[in-house]
């Protein structure tokens, strides 16, 4: 089970200036959706945008806190 506030903080620290919201999709605390609008996404492919979000929380995927992470990403202009 992941700490949603911590996950939000990890993403926000990796992507300064981003708007980040993390939702628990199933109530089980390990299937999460991250909604991220970040200036760093501008000009990057969708898969790259997702890679950037995923990299920010990789430690919490590796330790099993997050089992599944859906991502909604868009550039913040």
């Amino acid at each position, binding site marked *: 089970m992941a700490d949603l506030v911590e996950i939000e903080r990890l993403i926000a620290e990796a992507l300064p200036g981003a708007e980040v919201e993390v939702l628990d999709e*199933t109530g089980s605390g390990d299937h999460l959706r991250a909604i991220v609008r970040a200036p760093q996404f501008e000009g990057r492919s969708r898969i790259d945008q*997702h*890679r950037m979000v995923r990299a920010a929380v990789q430690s919490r995927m590796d330790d099993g806190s997050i089992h599944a992470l859906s991502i909604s990403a868009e550039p913040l202009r």
Partner: protein
Amino acid sequence: MAANPELKQQVDELLRENKVLLFMKGTPEMPRCGFSMRVVGVLEQLGVEYGAVDVLPLLDPLREVTGEISDWRTFPQLYVNGELVGGCDIVEEMLETGELSELVGVEQPETVQPPPQPQPTDPQQSPPLKLG
């Protein structure tokens, strides 16, 4: 752990031979994961020819291979022209915007079906069951 070189070579060959290639849990006829099922649904709506690989028999070795090839370790994964396009979220977004039709070279369907409800209880990923 490094990827098995023989398996990696096989995957590279599949990527060269299949313009549209889906790595999924289960088969298009019998998906074993809700996310894989949704990507199959997108491809069927587009009517595009695609190859599908069931990753379940070689799940961990294939994670290593795709990790090295495209820095992505979760499935499903859709590749077009040898490049990773994305998983379920990206594929569904790109269906809606028409980007995916353009990428694979087919006409955008006139009506795009909304995706089925997510099925978070993937049999491979259910949270631990508690007794007592």
